[in-house]
């Protein structure tokens, strides 16, 4: 499917975890091909976006690669990261109230599972983590905050994530971490990569 004249978007159906694994694998395969007319390859929750260079037409080879049976999702496990969190976020009481839980149970539940980095999006190094227990899925704020502190650990719908820099943001804040999610001078610049696993622990 086209997004403007430069974006070629392929979506994968089915449960989000499987669809995401396929989107990640397709994204890696397309990037590895290094098609000359491609300016960027961006994985999403269940999509891969191929962005063409301005004015460029997609080659036959690229069209075939995009339509091809998606590669078997990578089975190798990504690296595991432990992120230490001070669970004193502004929205912790509201999240607990929305879910009829005690704040302490919200924290325990958030720490109880291993998450997978679905994709990096929104801002440099911002991870969208899949695996949030269903009881913790809360809608985004009706109106985003003008400024969210860097290191904020938050929940937005079915995702949990971490704000690498102070930006406007509409996710609900659970706590804070000192982890440096993004540093352009570091190799690689993003602490987390799609497919990596994350566990939250108490700081």
């Amino acid at each position, binding site marked *: *499917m*086209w*997004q*403007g*004249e*430069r*974006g070629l*978007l392929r*979506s994968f159906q089915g449960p*989000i975890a499987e669809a995401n694994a396929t989107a990640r694998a397709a*994204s890696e395969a397309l*990037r590895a091909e290094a098609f000359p007319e491609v*300016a*960027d*390859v*961006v*994985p*999403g*929750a*269940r*999509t*891969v*976006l191929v*962005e063409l260079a*301005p*004015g*460029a*037409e997609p080659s036959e080879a690229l069209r075939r690669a995009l339509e091809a049976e998606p590669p078997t999702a990578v089975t190798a496990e990504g690296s595991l990261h432990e992120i230490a969190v001070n669970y004193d976020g502004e929205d912790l009481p509201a999240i607990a109230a929305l879910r009829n839980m005690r704040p302490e149970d919200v924290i325990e539940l958030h720490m109880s599972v291993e998450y997978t980095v679905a*994709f*990096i*999006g*929104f*801002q*440099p*190094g*911002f991870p*969208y983590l899949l695996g949030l227990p269903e009881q913790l899925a809360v809608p985004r704020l009706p109106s985003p905050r003008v400024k969210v502190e860097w290191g904020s650990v938050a929940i937005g*719908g079915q995702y949990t994530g971490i704000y690498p*820099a*102070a*930006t*406007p943001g509409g996710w609900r804040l659970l706590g804070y971490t000192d982890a440096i999610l*993004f540093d*352009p001078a570091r190799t*690689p*610049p*993003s602490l987390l990569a*799609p497919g990596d696993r994350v566990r939250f622990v108490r700081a």
Partner: protein
Amino acid sequence: MHAGPLSTVQDLGRPGFGSIGVAPSGAMDPWALRTANALVGNSDGAATIEFTMSGPTIAFEEDAVVALTGSRFDASVLRSVGGSAFERDVDTSPAPYQMSFRLRAGESVRIGPTLSGARGYLAVRGGIEVEEVFGSRSTQVAAGLGGRVLKQGDRLAGGRADDAPLRRSRTTSAYRSEQRVRALPGPQREIFVAGSPERFFSSPYRVTTRFDRTGIRLEGPALELNRAPDIDPEGVVTGALQVPADGQPILLCNDRPTTGGYAKIATAIMADMHLAAHAKPGDTIRFDRTTPDVARAAWRELEDSWRATIEDIE
């Protein structure tokens, strides 16, 4: 220097890092940036200053060759007479536009409000020196990545005055307050109530005061949705028109997020984004439906006409 409301260092941007959340950034009007660089004898993508609605005042500590392009602003050159810093002892003359000119050490360029569109560019022979981040000197304002947002009192390095010939472009650009921008429908047409896409393509949308390098919030006939506008977040391109729950479209620009979770009613074509770059609050944009072939041909025509502009520089 005085900074102006939003003056940043920009070059042609850093495409190719969307998968780690890094926006392409770069000049909102890349053609004006390239022209400014050509006028002062820089390479195409040298770093320049992009200013918005009103510009900075910059005092030069050394001789320099500079050029102003993009929208026409109320700009002057200040030369102090008799060595005094007092205003009454300063000789003010209009700054040349679309041509390079020399400044001596101690002289200033003062860029006031715009006389037409939202953005202008100041190139200095030798380019502005800031650190490269991912191969670019562009500023990503929202993430605080790369480049520089100019602040009062800042000092910028760069520039190299020499005997390079001064140049003039015979092409001038006028930006209209009623702009037409071509767009392709989709990709989330099915989320919109029947008739919404037609309404989008037949109505003028007004530019609100919430316009920046991330996006331009537009106001016009509301685009009704079948359901909540949330979609599983997916990669977006510059020019995407996202529609949140209030039904008012947002045109995503160069500092956009790399992924978006709102339905998109259409995508403006790349060849017309430099026109949208000059839209000011209160201006209107009308989106004309077009096809991918026309969109790509329009980009190639733009490249050809830019080459002609450069050959025409004397």
